[in-house]
């Protein structure tokens, strides 16, 4: 039997299940499957997939959370990976310069040049693992670890919508202006969220993003 995921409490509001091991699409497919299952459990208000993890918000906090945790772990071990064939959108990116104010920090951390970082960043097809952070924002899997850069010491109070950024081993595109602890390396433009639509988000888990180098500003 593989390692049990780690389960922890987020106050009395929610619990968090975190899968073991390297971040992978296979694990994420199990997270999607588990999420679909537990959404029907009566004690669950919302099930929210993250990056190889799953948050469950309670309708009412259980007096003793242990039986729920046990049931969740059992469901995890029997969950079958759910494959979702989505669509792919391509986003042209201006890397560096004013479009990527933290490119220098990523260069300093990785020892790579701006062109190399742009090449490495735009090479993979990134599957959307989950949505979160702010309306329409996609967490992407599959970033090359050579350009991984720690989150900033203190979050930046405002980065613009369209900002392409790196936080740890992850990358993503801001869907609107707001605070962020990630390093912005470039900019693109796309409407990711429209409250009048159903669903309101452009992308769903299982869809993919491809970044194309429009320009690298040195």
């Amino acid at each position, binding site marked *: 039997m593989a390692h049990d995921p780690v389960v922890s409490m987020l106050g009395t509001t929610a619990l968090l299940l*975190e899968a073991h091991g390297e971040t992978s699409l296979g694990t994420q497919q199990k997270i999607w499957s588990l999420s679909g299952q537990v959404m029907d459990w009566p004690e669950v208000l919302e099930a929210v997939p*993250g*990056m190889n*993890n799953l948050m469950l918000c309670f309708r009412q906090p259980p007096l003793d959370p242990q039986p729920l945790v046990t049931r969740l772990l059992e469901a995890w071990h029997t969950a079958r990976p759910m494959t979702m064939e989505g669509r792919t959108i391509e986003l042209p990116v201006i890397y560096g310069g004013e479009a990527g104010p933290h490119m220098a920090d990523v260069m300093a951390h990785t020892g790579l040049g701006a062109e190399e970082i742009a090449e490495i960043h735009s090479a993979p097809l990134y599957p959307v693992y989950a949505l979160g952070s702010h309306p329409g924002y996609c967490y992407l899997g599959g970033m090359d670890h050579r350009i991984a850069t720690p989150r900033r010491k203190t979050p930046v109070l405002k980065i613009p919508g369209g900002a392409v950024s790196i936080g740890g081993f992850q990358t993503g595109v801001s869907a609107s202006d707001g605070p962020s602890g990630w390093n912005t390396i470039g900019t693109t433009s796309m409407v990711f969220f429209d409250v009048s639509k159903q669903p309101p988000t452009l992308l769903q888990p299982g869809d993919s993003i491809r970044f194309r180098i429009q320009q690298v500003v040195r």
Partner: protein
Amino acid sequence: MIEILSSTALATVQDLGRFGALGWGVSHSGAMDRLALTAGNILLGNDENCAGIEIPIFPFRVRFHQACDLVLTGADHLARLDDVPVWPWLTIHAGAGQILTIERGGPSRWQASRVYLCVAGGIDVPLALGSRSTQLRGQFGGHQGRTLQQGDRLPVGVAAQALRPVGMGIVPPALTMPLEVDATPAIRVLRAAEYAAFTDQSCVEFWAKSWKITSQSDRYGYRLAGPMIEPKYPLELRSHGIVPGVIQVPHGGQPIIQMRDAQPSGGYPKIGTVIDADLWRLGQAPIGSSVRFVEVTWAEAVRALQDVTDWLDEVRRMVALGLTVRQEAGHDQ
């Protein structure tokens, strides 16, 4: 219709929050002090999830273009309807054309920052993804998805009952459920996943020292100033769901408490989570004030939530009783 007369920023329309949309990246939002909003709605005979106006900065002035019953809950501040003083937590009737002014100050019985203007029928802005709360980041919900501005006109819903308890008052929860440590307002906290990853000294100081709520604090989160909280080793987590109350510690070592507009996911290490039962206390804590953290067990946290439920039950009981007394006394309003 209520017209905003003051140019004060940061007031928003809020109900109890937007649920079921976290998976689209849409946070819960909702009143920072849910107890104040809920109690205000109960006092007015409203549905308990009716929207009110959350007011964090004063003076704040509105004109009622229609007669309506209202109540101010939350922080105790000086208020008047035209020239007549208005007591907080006490329902009153406003005639068409009257002006309500709320100013900071007065003989406050407790330290608090947010006033809720609740009206019979609620603020009737359209529902967006199931809620009337303002989603500032997504620019939807509430009134045009933004903070209120001078000249805004807000629709008032149809009051639920012909008979409402005007003149009903209650004692604010901060006075019936006080919580302090060494004369500093206290907030109860459960340990979070990375608690053990912080140095022993950091953990000791987290509980022992007081934490100042800095000016970089808002509905998204409270940035705190106090002793440095340091991890034993660098932590870089995968992004995961978070909820209001989660206390993250970025690499800079100064904690951030996620509040109602908090993003629904994050990746900074978590030292603890403010329990749901105490989020209203924190929601009222003024910028520049200090709080202490008190560790509780799961069982204590669940019991604290029951205390909140019991308090609201008591408000419901009082209001029902007040209605009965008024009916028997022959009031016909």
